[in-house]
């Protein structure tokens, strides 16, 4: 039941995405601009971490892609809510968890595709990283986008209109990006900022991916990253399922 329903809904949303090449490629544009126009500025600078500037920047851009892309996924559910589509689906016996999973899996596949595009472009720009490290990075992007898309849907169900949703997401995502050291490692930050950034879970994810890009897998940083990603995923699925189950969602 759950698998069947999830597959049906994933197929519906995947087909919608495939009909919109703009949506597929546009999401990767901002990280690509950072890669092309910001990345070269960092070449040769001491960034307080092992590895060259591409090994520091590209993990940050990958997670930026997930953070901003997935956080705004909720716009779609606001539209569906306004069109009455969500209510129509909720009167069917479809699994409530599938209502969440069908969408988030589509988002995850979409952002993973964009992440692959970004890494391919980065390789052309000069990134050199071990293949297992690159794959670990994709794993983190997968968990991050899955979690954030779920939480975005939860927020979207609670807010009445896109006019409220957009600013709310910007207010949450921007500090999260700045405090997690996506652009530059927090090792460069003054002490108070470094301490503050430890309260932002994305910091652990980006640090773990940076370790992976330099071939360091069995590190405490990696462990913290895995724990943060797993915690986010569990939180997102729990809250998301509860919200979609809620009869008034």
């Amino acid at each position, binding site marked *: *039941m759950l698998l*069947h*329903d999830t597959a*049906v809904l994933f197929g*519906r949303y995947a*087909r*919608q995405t495939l*009909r919109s090449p703009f949506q597929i490629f546009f999401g990767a544009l901002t990280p690509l601009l950072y890669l092309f126009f910001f990345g070269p500025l960092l070449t040769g600078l001491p960034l307080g971490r092992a590895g060259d500037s591409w090994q520091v920047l590209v993990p940050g851009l990958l997670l930026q892609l997930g953070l901003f892309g997935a956080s705004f996924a909720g716009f779609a559910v606001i539209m*569906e809510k*306004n*069109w*009455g*589509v969500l*209510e*129509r*689906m*909720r*009167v*069917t*016996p*479809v699994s409530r968890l599938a209502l969440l999973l069908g969408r988030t899996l589509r988002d995850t596949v979409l952002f993973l595709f964009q992440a692959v595009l970004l890494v391919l472009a980065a390789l052309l720009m000069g990134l050199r990283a071990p293949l297992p490290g690159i794959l670990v990075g994709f794993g983190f992007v997968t968990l991050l986008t899955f979690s954030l898309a779920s939480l975005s849907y939860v927020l979207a169900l609670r807010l009445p209109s896109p006019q409220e949703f957009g600013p709310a997401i910007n207010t949450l995502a921007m500090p999260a990006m700045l405090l997690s050291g996506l652009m530059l490692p927090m090792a460069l930050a003054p002490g108070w900022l470094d301490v503050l950034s430890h309260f932002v879970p994305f910091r652990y994810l980006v640090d773990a991916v940076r370790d992976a890009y330099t071939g360091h897998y069995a590190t405490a940083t990696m462990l913290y990253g895995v724990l943060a990603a797993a915690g986010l995923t569990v939180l997102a699925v729990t809250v998301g399922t509860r919200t979609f189950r809620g*009869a*008034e969602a």
Partner: protein
Amino acid sequence: MAIISTSGLSRTFRTKQGEVHAVRGIDLTVRAGEILGFLGPNGAGKSTTLRMLSTLLPPTGGAATVCGHDLLRDPVAVRRKIGYVAQGGGVDPQETVRSELVTQGRLYGLPRPEATARAAALARDLDLTELLDRSTAALSGGQRRRLDLALGLTHRPALLFLDEPTTGLDPGSRAALWALVRRLRDDHGTTVVLTTHHLDEADALAERLVIIDGGAVAAEGSPAALKAEHGADTLQDAFLAITGRGPAPVDTTPVAVQ
């Protein structure tokens, strides 16, 4: 045989201004094969009652059995047997008529070939065949309402809920939809429960009316019985006698196609 049975069904909303008792203890029995209309002014509690009976909104009090299943204990079993068409519809403007119908069938567990065949059959029954590959965004109000109805009938439900089914439709489309509802009952034995604030619709379509006012049942009976009981020539006069006020003004706003 009763297809709906409620006892003290209630719904209270908590708002910043305090509690709002939208539905106050409704006792109701609906017989299988009946066309029942909930009639009442805006905000009377008609749609809230319908949303509770269709599992969209949990009651805060009372009990109900729908299609032989307890509404609170087994909502999934209820959902398998009911169809629901919301006031504003539920069509995705990014999809075609065919894809909406097929997906709806799949959500009821039909294998793809069967869902596809069912979509074609429904399109034939509801005069949508020529529109199957058209984007739903390009449908007229009447066409879209027929699609809404088709979506609610995909799994051949025993009980169909229609929330303000003809709001925003032109007179021709309204009459066509009334004919469809009657055909559903006559040909398939489908029980239809609808809400309306159009007195002409209630008079023409419903065999029995439940007049809801202030969240409670104010009167119940066939349109003829209600008129006779209150010595009224028209349903409007009977409604006025029962509720002390006229019905809501007729909404002539066309259904928005987004």
